């Protein structure tokens, strides 16, 4: 690589950047490299927005069409679990932000601590989600695999004021649960990917990789983690809260 050539560039003659081991040959400066990867990560998050966009569209349409079924379906959601999970994710977002901060201020121990906390909270979230899914399996609420409309055609003891649904509308609770499993499933898949990357990050952070000033990777992972949090911030009210009223 011709580092001589870079040095001749008038605007970017910062000597300390030239020999940085993290600077890829096609970038002139480390700032440029950092901005580029930051921008790239954001573009990737845009595709994620659109990816969820298709599912949100489907959700809105069917909620419009089969509102009573969505009411009945969301009554079977455990609000405490949803609230707890929202809190867990928000906490993990906070610890992730703090991890990025620790990397910025080059504190290896703090970085390790916050990353491990984030990882732990990620597992807690997945655990609670798995518990909920297990419950839904037991209650025969998994469309396509294990579904029965029984719960919706009879009065729900916990909601004695609710009228049971007519069989045709009760069938439509499948739409609700399909979208529920689709949205939470794809979200959990993102969490799984995030958790796996976190393991890798912790290993590298332990070796001191991100506390030398080169922290693009951890910064971008932070963006990803926060994005997954944002998705949940919308899923929680959509699936658990807004359809609870007749």
């Amino acid at each position, binding site marked *: 690589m011709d580092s001589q050539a870079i040095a001749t560039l008038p605007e970017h003659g910062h000597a300390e950047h030239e020999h940085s081991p993290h600077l890829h040959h096609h970038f002139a400066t480390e700032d440029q490299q950092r901005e580029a990867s930051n921008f790239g990560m954001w573009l990737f998050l845009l595709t994620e927005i659109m990816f969820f966009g298709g599912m949100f569209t489907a959700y809105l349409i069917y909620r419009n069409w089969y509102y009573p079924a969505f009411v009945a379906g969301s009554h079977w959601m455990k609000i405490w679990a949803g609230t707890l999970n929202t809190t867990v994710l928000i906490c993990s977002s906070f610890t992730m932000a703090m991890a990025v901060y620790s990397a910025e201020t080059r504190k290896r121990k703090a970085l390790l601590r916050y990353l491990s906390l984030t990882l732990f909270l990620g597992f807690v979230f997945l655990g609670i989600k798995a518990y909920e899914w297990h419950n839904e399996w037991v209650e025969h609420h998994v469309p396509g695999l294990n579904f029965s409309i029984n719960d919706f055609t009879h009065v729900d003891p916990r909601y004695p004021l609710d009228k049971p649904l*007519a069989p*045709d*509308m009760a069938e439509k609770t499948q739409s609700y649960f399909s979208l529920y499993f689709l949205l939470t499933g794809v979200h959990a898949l993102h969490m799984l990917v995030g958790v796996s990357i976190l393991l890798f990050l912790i290993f590298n952070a332990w070796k001191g990789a991100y506390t030398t000033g080169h922290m693009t990777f951890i910064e971008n992972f932070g963006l990803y983690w926060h994005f997954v949090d944002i998705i949940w911030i919308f899923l929680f009210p959509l699936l658990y809260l807004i359809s609870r009223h007749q």
Partner: protein
Amino acid sequence: MHYFISPVLWQFLVKWLAHFPLFPPEASSVAPYADALFFFLLFISALGSGIVILMVVSFSVLYHKERNPEATQIEGSTLLEATWTIIPLALFMIVFVWGALLYFRIYNPPTNAMNIYVVGKQWMWKAEHPGGQHEIDALHVPVGRPVRLTMISQDVFHSFSIPAFRVKREVIPGRYTTVWFTATKPGTYHLFCTQYCGTLHSQMIGWVYAMKPEDYQAWLAGSTSGSSLAQNGERLFASLGCNACHSGNPSSRGPNLAEAYGAKVQLANGSYTVVDDAFLRDSILNPSSHVTAGYAPIMPTYQGQVSEEGLIDLVEYIKTLHSNDRVQQTLNTSLVQNSGSTTGTGASAQGQAAAETPRMVNK
């Protein structure tokens, strides 16, 4: 030319080349309108392409390197660019408005149109005339009278296309779509399924027979199946027990259906809707979404119990229901029949028909 090839082959070629169409027949009232727009579009296309070709060819000749060794650099011209932005835009707007008007002409049937039902399934078209005439892969229509097709698919997307009439409409599972036309020339025209629908998609074709009104009447009379759609519907109505609630009595549990078709009703959620074919069909399949104000949502769904043809019969029956006399009559006879085993009274003719009707269901 024909000295070099065999005369038989030559004659065959001439015949072949002389007898293939380049333009479809115009056989409906909208066809001339569609073709007028088409010729306008052809004209502006030719104009546009002509200008482009003229520019490219003349510049190629005029400014060929041999003739013009040195290019003159030109930045652009706002005036010219504005011209070729605004003129195409104006032309496209004309096309848009014209096309939209034609669209409404083709898809908004006149109120006096006669109705024929079409059911699409892999891979055939079934047409059902109100008089009970059934046909497969064929459609007989009178000339000079608006015909509305109410169409539905039993399985996948199909598309009902009559090129000579310039009409086409997707036939969708779960939902009625309509199209209308007035045939203007007696004749036999192609009927195609144009939406890819599986293995034998290209066999899902048939013929449309546009007939003089008197021929059509003769055909109707000659191919009757004995009972009209409404009569079939009446039997189905009774056998499904619809009359138990929709008896028309003021105290009955279901809304009165006499003269219901075309009326505006208020639904339980407060909104108003016009009772049309689609509303009737959906109410049978998804009753809880179509509860009339003032009634309890107690009607069971008939999803999976009535075939699309059966639904058409029911819809047609309700459309023709002007009073509840017959409903109550059927109700009485079926009561009689139900109690028949104990009282030993013979069932009436209608009761027998009702007993037969399970064959109509799930056909």
